[in-house]
């Protein structure tokens, strides 16, 4: 414990019911441990009074309520140091008084005890889906955390963005299935047990779907047909931006979720795996005017939310409210939050959900120079963090390719997803677009380089890769919304039968299509992202919006590893292929010329005839060659890589570009073939007998290595 500080600052000046306190320090906001006490500081621009409410852990009633005297208020900040508190056994909140005048944006309610927006842990949902006490006076309780974790020299990895292979994961889904074999299923500790699997797969970055504290019971209901409890499973609805989800920690019931998460991050870092967080700063769990008052709404509604002139909530998020993130106070909170996660949890980067909202002004109109995005891009603490935008919102603002980037921001490339899907299913008129996507979308990111685009074909939103090749239509009936929810434009093709089938030919084609998708993803410039389980054929049974299911619809069934050995084997070798070939991982765009005098341009395009790409509208073939002498923008040497894609329904012969003397074509990948001839390990690629042309089967991809 810290020694008693004899400076006069720390002597109590006030006392209430035996609790001693004094004026506090205005910054930092939140509850901070100071010698012999806790400093509480909170902002409200329009409250008329504020009371600090202190509980013993899990006690129904507070042990004291201390109103902030006038002399404790500086500007709009209420601060107080309370002495001799038991940090471990403390929960706190605030009562704010002020006008209830929704027309003018005020919704004060002194009967509510409010969570601190800067609380570092929240009690109330300590164990996943444990039945709460619905009558509790104060359901989501602010708690203190200790920052004494032993990081043993760990720090964020700062892996070059172009070298990342991202694996998008839901914490609970990854190990909650009984087949996962881990001891603590569905938790941070469970992921830690599976680190050897991730290393073997070859991914070097996890993107965790929301892990900020949320209420899994929010909007929960029973499916009228099945009786299944539908919950807020994905967690895109934040209760508090600083607190990790306790229910994701096996030790959450003991209040050790912070330590468990940090231990996971430290272990992932030890194994070269970065951690990105999917953060939801576009809205909160308080909903619209009908929603609960948990924190922001009762502290300073008008500051924290975008309001219509009538005082209702703008709904650019599609979930009821919109965080007013370009208000200077909210902007600072977002900055404080991300700095905290980067410095205290060693998080390597952030993916911003519905990030187009972060570029809207306080009245909802799009800004040309959004201060929040600029602040994040230039922030000194976040300087090495990856910043990734989901560059659209539910209000129709679509900024893919034009998101204000300040030389820093990357984007989820939704156009990549749609183009690759259309090409895979054999659509016409896609080849020109495809050529841009595999180059890292220079048509969209000319000035920003290849790393501006996060390439993905599937993500948590939409079909899994298996379902993309197994369903023409979404099947969301289990969501209890009459199949009206979820995206209708999936660009999917079921290969001849809707859903599961015993037809061998269809199943073979589906596996080939999955391999085709993984191949294109791994040979594209930019940053590839794989959805958890796609490497083993995970299905969501045709559901493309599984936000509410705590069932096998979402849980990763690890027995698929045995059932789909060929897919898993192909995926891990394809990932390793990308790691072994730096020519696939350029930071800057190709120049379409031979600036290293190797005899080949950095990239060239081909068709069934070498050096003649078929750009016709009816074309379903595309081949390209990457010259290894131009790897890493000319700084490294690699093999020559030739990729031939045939999404036509007949086999086609591709004439091969002639290699320089002494080099020969070797087959690395042929998705038409069965395991183990579909992909060969690095340096074990067989030399081709015929060096002049190759037959690429219908809906197949071949990769050749020239060495």
């Amino acid at each position: 414990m810290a020694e008693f500080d004899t400076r006069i600052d720390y002597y109590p000046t006030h006392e209430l019911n035996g609790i001693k306190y004094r004026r506090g320090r205005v910054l930092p906001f939140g509850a901070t441990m100071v010698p012999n006490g806790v400093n509480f500081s909170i902002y409200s621009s329009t409250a008329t009074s504020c009371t600090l409410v202190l509980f013993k852990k899990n006690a129904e009633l507070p042990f004291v309520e201390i109103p902030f005297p006038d002399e404790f208020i500086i500007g709009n900040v209420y601060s107080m140091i309370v002495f001799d508190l038991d940090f471990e056994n403390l929960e706190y909140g605030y009562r704010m008084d002020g006008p209830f005048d929704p027309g003018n944006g005020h919704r004060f309610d002194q009967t509510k005890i409010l969570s601190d927006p800067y609380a570092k842990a929240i009690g109330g949902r300590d164990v996943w889906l444990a039945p709460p006490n619905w009558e509790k006076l104060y359901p989501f309780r602010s708690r203190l955390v200790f920052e004494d974790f032993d990081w043993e020299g760990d720090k964020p990895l700062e892996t070059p963005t172009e070298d990342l292979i991202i694996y998008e994961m839901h914490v609970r889904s990854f190990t909650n299935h009984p087949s996962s074999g881990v001891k603590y299923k569905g938790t941070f500790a469970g992921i830690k047990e599976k680190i050897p699997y991730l290393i073997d797969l070859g991914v070097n970055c996890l993107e965790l779907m929301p892990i900020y504290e949320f209420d899994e019971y929010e909007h929960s209901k029973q499916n009228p047909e099945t009786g299944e409890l539908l919950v807020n499973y994905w967690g895109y609805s934040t209760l508090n931006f600083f607190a990790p989800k306790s229910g994701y920690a096996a030790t959450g019931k003991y209040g050790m979720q912070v330590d468990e998460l940090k231990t996971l991050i430290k272990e992932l870092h030890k194994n070269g795996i970065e951690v990105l967080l999917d953060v939801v700063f576009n809205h909160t769990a308080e909903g619209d005017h009908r929603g609960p008052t948990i924190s922001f709404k009762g502290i300073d509604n008008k500051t924290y939310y975008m309001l219509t002139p009538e005082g209702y909530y703008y709904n650019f998020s599609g979930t009821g409210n919109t965080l007013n993130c370009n208000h200077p106070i909210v902007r600072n909170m977002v900055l404080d939050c991300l700095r905290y996660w980067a410095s205290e949890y060693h998080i390597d980067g952030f993916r911003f959900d519905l990030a187009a909202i972060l570029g809207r002004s306080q009245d909802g109109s799009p800004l040309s120079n959004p201060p929040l995005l600029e602040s994040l891009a230039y922030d000194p603490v976040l300087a090495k963090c990856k910043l990734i935008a989901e560059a659209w919102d539910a209000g129709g603002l679509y900024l893919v390719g034009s998101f204000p980037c300040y030389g820093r921001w990357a984007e989820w490339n939704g156009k990549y997803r749609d183009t690759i899907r259309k090409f895979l299913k054999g659509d016409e008129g896609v080849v020109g677009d495809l050529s841009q996507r595999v180059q890292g979308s220079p048509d969209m990111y000319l000035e920003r380089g290849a790393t501006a685009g996060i390439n993905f074909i599937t993500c948590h939103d939409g079909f899994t890769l298996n379902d993309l090749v197994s369903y023409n239509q979404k099947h969301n009936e289990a969501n209890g919304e009459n199949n009206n929810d979820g995206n209708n434009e999936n660009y999917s093709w079921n290969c001849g039968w809707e859903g599961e089938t015993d037809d061998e030919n269809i199943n073979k084609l589906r596996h080939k299509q999955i391999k085709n998708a993984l191949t294109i993803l791994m040979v594209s410039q930019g940053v590839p992202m794989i959805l958890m389980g796609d490497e083993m054929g995970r299905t969501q049974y045709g559901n493309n919006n599984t936000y509410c299911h705590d069932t096998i619809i979402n849980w990763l069934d690890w027995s698929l590893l045995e059932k789909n050995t060929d897919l898993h084997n192909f995926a891990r070798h394809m990932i390793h292929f990308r790691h072994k070939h730096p020519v696939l991982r350029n930071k800057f765009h190709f120049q379409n010329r031979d600036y290293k005098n190797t005899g080949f341009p950095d990239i060239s395009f081909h068709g069934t005839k070498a050096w003649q790409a078929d750009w016709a509208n009816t074309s379903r073939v595309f081949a390209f060659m990457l010259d290894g002498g131009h790897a890493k923008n000319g700084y490294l040497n690699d093999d020559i890589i030739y990729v031939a894609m045939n999404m036509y329904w007949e086999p086609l012969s591709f004439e091969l570009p002639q290699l320089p003397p002494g080099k020969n074509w070797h087959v690395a990948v042929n998705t038409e073939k069965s395991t183990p001839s579909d992909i060969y390990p690095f340096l074990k690629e067989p030399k081709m007998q015929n060096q002049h042309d190759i037959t690429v089967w219908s809906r197949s991809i071949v990769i050749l290595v020239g060495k």
Partner: protein
Amino acid sequence: MSLIVNSEFSNDVAKITLSGALDSSTASQLNETVQKIIPQSPKELVMFVEKLDFMSSAGLRVIIYAKQKLGPAVNLILVKPQEQLVETLRMTGLIFSVNIVDNYPE
């Protein structure tokens, strides 16, 4: 449940025996004992925890505190911890900061 803390110091070795539950209501007892031991600069801190049935975050914090105050050169030994305690130490990463043994001369 309550916590019983016994301690002794001899030959540069501090020994603490714990039984009961180490939670937020009892952690201060252990903390007081640890506070007394630290100035004596032991070369080893041995905690006999076979009869410790439960440890919460508060208990974890005291162990972290002791480890940090004593420094990396001082061994912190836990004798015969129950499975739940080992699991907690494992999940929170603290297992790397302590030595777990089955026996230690009392």
